[in-house]
């Protein structure tokens, strides 16, 4: 392994050590922010996997919401250990993804984008309109995670850190696996990939399902952590927007990009929400437009550009 490789691993270990250590120094509020950052690391990383196969989802809120509702309703019905809920949340989100997959993964990317958006809205309306099952627009309350309180927050942080770690690890391994070559082939030229014996639909559904699974799991975590969910909150279109803008800011097609984007934008978003209050999303819009024009490869692309030039 090259020196650069060792340097990379070392810096990753330092980062991980740092993340494991911070609960002991952070205030409750900062820890809450770090938990949100980790939630978005999962969403952004999962969303980015789709881009590898040239698919755009504008509806990742659907998977987040499905995960959250599955976990909340399961827990309230049977009080299983929460890890079951989280996995079930992921499984149900994946089922949703397979449904979309069967319906429309053969469509052009733009049509898929609209279909996913419609899917998220459709699921939201189902949740609102079936109060017998979901308690409708009122939302669902769940017992706080690990009994609530200060130590519970630390545990919650470690739990979501573990989920985020697994998601990023999955993305990393996926990127180094043979699958990634199939993904890239589909991304570059679907027809050609098909002729070489790569079944685009199979791989697209695979990427979509994987992506949805992790978002569903973290949706389940969010429901337990926040201990109250409602359809307009967890199926919010802004979750789908964040899912796109974070990888774009960090750098599409990379593993580090969505993580970097999630850190910066979650913290920036929280800062803006508190200071600007009304209409703070305007800043997001401006960032999005500027990124498309001046930094389509994201921050990671920028840094790689620098190091290569040296």
């Amino acid at each position, binding site marked *: 392994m090259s020196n650069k490789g060792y340097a990379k691993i070392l810096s990753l270990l330092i980062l991980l050590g740092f993340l494991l250590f911070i609960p002991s120094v952070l205030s409750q509020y900062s820890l809450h922010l770090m938990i949100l950052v980790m939630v978005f690391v999962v969403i952004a990383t999962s969303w980015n996997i789709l*881009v590898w196969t040239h698919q*755009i989802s*504008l509806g990742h809120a659907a998977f987040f919401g499905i995960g959250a509702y599955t976990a909340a309703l399961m827990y309230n019905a049977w009080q299983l250990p929460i890890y079951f809920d989280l996995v079930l949340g992921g499984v149900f989100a994946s089922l949703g993804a397979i449904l979309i997959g069967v*319906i*429309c993964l*053969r*469509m*052009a*990317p*733009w*049509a898929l*984008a*609209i*279909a996913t*958006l*419609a*899917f998220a*809205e*459709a699921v939201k*309306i*189902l949740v*609102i*309109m079936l109060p017998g099952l979901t308690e409708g627009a009122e939302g669902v309350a769940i017992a706080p995670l690990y009994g609530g309180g200060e130590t519970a927050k630390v545990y919650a942080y470690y739990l979501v850190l573990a989920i985020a770690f697994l998601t990023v690890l999955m993305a990393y391994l996926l990127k180094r696996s043979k699958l990634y070559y199939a993904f890239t082939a589909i991304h570059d030229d679907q027809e050609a990939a098909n002729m070489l014996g790569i079944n685009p639909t199979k791989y697209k559904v695979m990427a979509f399902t994987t992506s949805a699974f992790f978002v569903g799991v973290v949706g389940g975590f969010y429901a337990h952590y926040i201990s109250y969910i409602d359809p307009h909150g967890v199926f919010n*279109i802004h979750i789908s*927007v964040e899912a*796109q*803008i974070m990888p*774009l800011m960090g750098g599409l097609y990379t593993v580090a990009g969505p993580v970097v984007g999630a850190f910066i934008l979650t913290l920036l978003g929280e800062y803006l929400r508190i200071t600007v209050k*009304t*209409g*703070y*999303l*305007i800043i*997001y*819009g*401006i*960032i*999005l*437009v500027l990124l*498309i*024009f001046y930094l*389509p490869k994201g921050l990671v692309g920028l840094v790689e550009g620098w190091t290569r030039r040296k």
Partner: protein
Amino acid sequence: MDLATFAQVIVNGILTGGLYSLIAVGLTLIFGVMRVINFVHGETLMIGSYLTYFLFTLYGIDPFISLPLAIFVLFSFGVAIQRFFINPVIDAPHFNQILLTFGLVLILQNLALILFTGNYVSMTTGYSAISLKLGPIRMGLARLTGFVIAIVLTVLLSVALKKTEWGKSVRAVTQDREAAMLMGVNVDRVNILAFGVGSAMGGAGGVVTSMIMYTFPLIGMLFILKAFAIVVLGGFGSIAGAVVGSLILGLTESLVTNYLPNGSGWAEGVSFLILIVILVIRPKGLFYVE
């Protein structure tokens, strides 16, 4: 089933469909020419509706006078958006274009939120309360006028597409961009004009919305989702398809609202259901132009 009620439900559906067609026709025109998923289109409606609202409440200007003004303003707006934002990324991946128009939506929506607050506002014109009676059927004058405006503008656009030089260029580019370019069609000009005209239609939709319902900063998102459903339903790029799709959606919503328990809640989801069903049975829409 009561026949009079049924007739009323059908009439309501057709009137709503007319409003939808104003928005969907512009969207499908833009898509046909440029193959761009234009989320900004919903915001042309938002701007048009606030323009009408403020002209009326501040200066007492009737929506009928605001209509040509809104068409002009939103035409210019569309031209500017195309020229400065869409054109530079016209050859970039779909992905970048979608995110770009999404970014513009966030900017416009939140600008409106900052300037006008998130409150719903509506206005009362002298004819708001007047309704016409046709046998057992009642039609609000404002809604009927909105429908007539929609029909007139759509017919005008269709005639322009059939008869004028520009219209022929638009259809040529819609069918085959490369070939049109080789035949000497100035594609840039066609793009800019199509975007302007499409946005103007959206603006007119805004004038009608503020006449018959209300407006608020996020109204664009409400309509753009439906408009996309309609455009997919009718086939991307097809004007006739957009009109038929609008009527289908308007009628279905009206029927669901009246004949299902809790209908108005379900009606909100009908467009998405139709969208998904159409994508399954006919992925390219009912009137797809190759």
